[in-house]
């Protein structure tokens, strides 16, 4: 997702921010995971923006996608080349207005941006967990976030908002802690990972595991499986774009040459782009985290976990108001998946709004500048705050 991060043209920003951390589940009170395994201690990296109001009714939890982190907006250092990953949406006067809301974002469990994950040191061995790290689920990620909110003293969230895997966490929040979320905004997301999405994840994981440097996850002392991780990222990138966006962005244009090279160098711009994205990604991401997080998304099935196979049943405990948004060219989590989510919400008599935004840029559209998405989030949050404050 980092390729989209851009400075706000108006220069508006939350300014300089810092990542904080909170550690809990210290042995012997480890966190019990959905799989039954125990994990502890757990450290959560998080950032906050804006001020919590005295009534504590204006907290918005932002949930990041596969490769995101706690750094949503602003800059860590004045000379940072780029702001946080959703700076165009989160900041003063923006869609999620930090002048009005207290915004929280934490790095997900199994991540590699400050939260405990496979690259963290295992208390048992004093070495990185590697594959000894237990497999976690979206529900486990939400449990870790709940521990953080308890620590911050936030009883009820005005909203939970996120795209893609972030949207799955939004849904998990809404059914797991119905009394703690006033509203939920899943963007470009799904109630259950489809065979298509699992298939791409599996090919990406195989690319990592086929790299000899992966060494069954034990590579932290030596060379890392950069090639495998780069290929995994290239596969991911294809699924985040669309036929239309690739046609427009690259077409069949050649990269810095007038004719074919007649060898296996990157001839086409699209090849060069994917190689570049792959090589950039390995600088900031851990291959084992990629394996664990993609597995968590593959396991995600709200219907099976909360509804006995029925989407409508899965939402029977939910109380939040929903704003569901999909994008026309998203083929990873296509609109029909958002529609079936909306259908289930309607069957439960829940307050739901749904908008399918016309967008050419595929799944990643939720991260790109969209006056429409900004307008929707701004208005929806304002309405929920008014209803929560005044009834």
């Amino acid at each position: 997702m980092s390729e989209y991060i851009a400075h706000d043209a108006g220069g508006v920003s939350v300014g300089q921010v810092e990542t904080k951390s909170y550690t809990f589940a210290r042995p012997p009170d480890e966190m019990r995971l959905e799989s039954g395994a125990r994990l502890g201690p757990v450290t959560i990296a998080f950032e906050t923006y804006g001020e919590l109001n005295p009534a504590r009714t204006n907290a918005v939890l932002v949930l990041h996608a596969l490769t995101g982190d706690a750094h949503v907006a602003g800059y860590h250092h004045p000379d940072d080349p780029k702001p946080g990953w959703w700076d165009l949406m989160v900041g003063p006067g923006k869609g999620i207005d930090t002048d009005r809301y207290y915004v929280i974002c934490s790095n997900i469990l199994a991540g590699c941006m400050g939260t405990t994950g496979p690259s963290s040191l295992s208390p048992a061995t004093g070495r990185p967990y590697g594959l000894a790290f237990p497999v976690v689920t979206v529900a486990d990620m939400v449990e870790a976030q709940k521990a953080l909110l308890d620590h911050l003293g936030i009883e009820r969230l005005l909203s939970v908002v996120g795209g893609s895997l972030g949207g799955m966490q939004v849904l998990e929040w809404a059914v797991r802690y119905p009394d703690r979320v006033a509203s939920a905004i899943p963007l470009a997301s799904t109630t259950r990972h489809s065979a298509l999405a699992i298939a791409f994840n599996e090919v990406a994981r195989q690319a990592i595991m086929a790299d000899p440097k992966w060494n069954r996850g034990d590579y932290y002392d030596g060379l890392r499986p950069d090639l495998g991780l780069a290929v995994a990222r290239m596969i991911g990138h294809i699924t985040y774009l669309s036929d239309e966006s690739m046609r427009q962005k690259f077409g069949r244009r050649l990269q810095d040459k007038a004719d074919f090279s007649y060898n296996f160098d990157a001839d086409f711009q699209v090849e060069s782009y994917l190689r570049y994205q792959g090589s950039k990604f390995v600088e900031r991401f851990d291959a084992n985290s990629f394996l664990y997080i993609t597995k968590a998304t593959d396991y995600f099935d709200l219907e099976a976990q909360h509804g006995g196979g029925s989407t409508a049943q899965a939402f029977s405990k939910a109380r939040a108001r929903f704003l569901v948004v999909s994008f026309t060219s998203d083929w990873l989590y296509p609109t029909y998946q958002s529609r079936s989510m909306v259908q289930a919400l309607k069957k439960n008599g829940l307050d739901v709004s749904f908008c399918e935004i016309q967008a050419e840029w595929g799944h990643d559209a939720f991260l790109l500048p969209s006056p429409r998405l900004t307008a929707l989030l701004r208005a929806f949050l304002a309405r929920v705050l008014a209803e929560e404050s005044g009834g």
Partner: protein
Amino acid sequence: MRFDLKVIASWIEPGSRVLDLGCGEGDLLYYLKTQKGVTGTGIEMVEEKVQRCIERGLSVLQGDINAEILDYPDQSFDFVVLSQTLQQVYEPARLIQELLRVGRRGIVSFPNFSHLPVRLQLLLTGRAPVTKELPYDWHDTPNIRVITLKDFRQFSRQAGFRILREVAIRSHHRDTAGHLVRFWPTARATYGLFLIGK
């Protein structure tokens, strides 16, 4: 707000649950929410209008009314509104049946095709009428059928629903003002409004 919507709003009891099929930019729902404490939901096909509704603090679903209405449990609403949309519906009988499944009452309005100027246009010019209420050429219209007050009454008997209340109106000033038509409504009314039930 359009005059027909003002009349419709006057029929809706405060605090009731309302579904507005083809809600446009949410004029009716916004009025009902702010003036009558109504809990409302709209269904609208056009993305821009959906955004406008959400910006006004309304709940709205982007989609086709014929499909979206199917998901609601029986009797989810006190009133289901279908204003100036019936003339665009492919299967009116099926939609009205659904409307009265999910709602206790339905409110249906449509442009009256037996309005005198419509009749005269056809009679005198021999061409398909184009009026203020139905401002489209035959080849460029979203309206796939034309309906008169009498037609709708007959349709209620065929399709098996009851007309509980009927008002004919004549609107003017871009439809924002108007009055009720009591004398010879079938020829003098621009729109018919019907409160229906099972």
